[in-house]
């Protein structure tokens, strides 16, 4: 009797959850299905699970716009930004975690406060600055303002602090330099946070739209989201092509999320639970 009730309970829970999940993934399901449909038949007849597998939309989309180029541009920007954020972030986090001096906490406060400054509050002077530097429509504009971020510094510092002091003291006794301690002991012991930072930076660059839209809208320099927007502008009513394009543009973040879920979620919980 008790067991029966439990099973009913479980079935009920499962039904509720699945119906909610269904609503959440409906747009996704539909996007994939539509991308596999025959050209011009985006909603007629309407169905959610793919019945036809017409991959010609993908070849049309891939050839209709230089998606390969957009991919490479974005990956180039993302790799430089990811590496630099880990490098600069680890250096700064090391100071905030291990080197005490007067005014340090105030500097840390200033660093963290950059997360609270909305992008729209600084976008005009940033645009003018990039223009003055002669960086409009160049990789510099996409990369240099993004070389460091407070979020990476924050999660790296949190992880550095939790390293047992014995390790660092022992290295100091052996006469190791700060540089050596940072890269040979502290960073290797904080790999999960390094990976979390890398995932966040990569997704940030991959999903970024407004800034590249302003400063790098030339065909040669387009990153993926700008490229996708330009592509759909070019094929106004070719919706099956659109959907192939959106699948192409969302594949990397979805894959990264699936394989890096653990790190991603730990990073999120840390933005939240403090």
């Amino acid at each position: 009797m008790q067991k029966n009730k439990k099973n009913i309970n479980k079935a009920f829970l499962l039904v509720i959850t699945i119906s909610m999940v269904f609503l959440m993934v409906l747009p996704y399901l539909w996007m994939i299905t539509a991308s596999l449909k025959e050209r011009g038949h985006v909603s007629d007849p309407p169905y959610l699970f793919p019945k036809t597998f017409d991959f010609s939309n993908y070849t049309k989309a891939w050839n209709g716009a230089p998606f390969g180029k957009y991919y490479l541009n974005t990956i180039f920007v993302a790799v430089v930004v990811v590496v630099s954020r880990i490098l600069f972030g680890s250096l700064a986090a090391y100071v905030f975690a291990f080197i005490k001096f007067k005014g340090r906490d105030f500097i840390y406060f200033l660093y963290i406060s950059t997360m609270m400054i909305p992008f729209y509050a600084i976008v005009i002077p940033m645009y003018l600055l990039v223009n003055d530097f002669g960086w409009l429509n160049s990789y510099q504009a996409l990369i240099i303002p993004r070389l460091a971020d407070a979020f990476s510094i924050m999660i790296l510092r949190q992880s550095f602090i939790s390293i047992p002091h014995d390790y660092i003291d022992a290295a100091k006794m052996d006469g190791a330099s700060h540089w050596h301690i940072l890269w040979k002991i502290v960073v290797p012991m904080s790999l999960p946070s390094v990976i979390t930072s890398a995932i966040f930076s990569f997704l940030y660059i991959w999903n970024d739209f407004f800034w590249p839209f302003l400063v790098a809208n030339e065909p040669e320099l387009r990153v993926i989201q700008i490229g996708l927007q330009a592509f759909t502008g070019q094929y106004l009513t070719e919706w099956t092509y659109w959907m192939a394009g959106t699948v192409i543009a969302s594949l990397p973040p979805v894959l990264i999320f699936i394989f890096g879920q653990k790190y991603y979620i730990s990073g999120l919980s840390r933005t939240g639970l403090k």
Partner: protein
Amino acid sequence: MFKSFFRKRNNTLTAIIFLLPSAVVFIVFVFYPILKAFRLSLFEWNNPSKEPIFIGLENYKELLSDARFMNSLKVTFTYAFSVTFISIILGLLIATILNNKNLPFKTFFRGLFFLPTVTPTIVAAMVWIILFNPTYGFINTILRNFISSPPNWFSDPDWALLTLMLLGIWRRLGFTIIIYLAALQNIPSEYYEIAQMDGANTLQTFRYVTIPQMLPTTLMLITLGLMDAFMVFDQVLITTRGGPAGVTEVVSLFLYTDAFTLFKMGKGSAISVIIFVIIMVITIIQWRLVGFGTNEDVA
């Protein structure tokens, strides 16, 4: 000197060298621009080839008496509050269900709920445009089986903002669910055992144990959600461009139009400053309520 730096661990020198790269980025691309925005907001500068003219607080006066600007603030606040509160309420309910120990495949479900959040905004917006297309869209094709004239969604003045909110909630929900799930797992299980011993039913337990325990997390989700939703731009640009008749013209779009299509850099900066002040007020309220977010002991 360089040698001794590596040998002797000069703390001050190390601190300066280690902080320098990130400090340069923040000073040049965050702190200088925000100060510059304050300064520029006091000028009229509509022509890049001419010198800016000092006009004091004129830009602010003009903005505050501009019905279009006030409308954009109203639209943004309506959007931000609705998206934030609805995704918080739904998020807590769904997280509670996902936290139930009888539910199988939890990680899988959690991942699916989170999928919209990792989707690029441009992708999400494009899918929604077609999904909600009045004539050929999937939603209306289905709805026409039940009602004769379903709404025109993005192109309907009565529905456009609501459709945009739906998109916002869809993308936000995963985040609130993940945060609530992490917080729910921190509630000591004794609390639930005591509630059970006292004969509380599921609803009462939720009301008297879960909700009060979730208060700090909820406050934080409200401020983070408001900040995020207040900055909505990409999806509006792609779906409605502020139309029809300005019902979805959010403040970031207003800023974009004035600063980057009409080149009113001074007036645009005044809008920037107003956005900055609003976000600061939200941030300070958060710090007051839940404390400054850098204390790793609580994390």
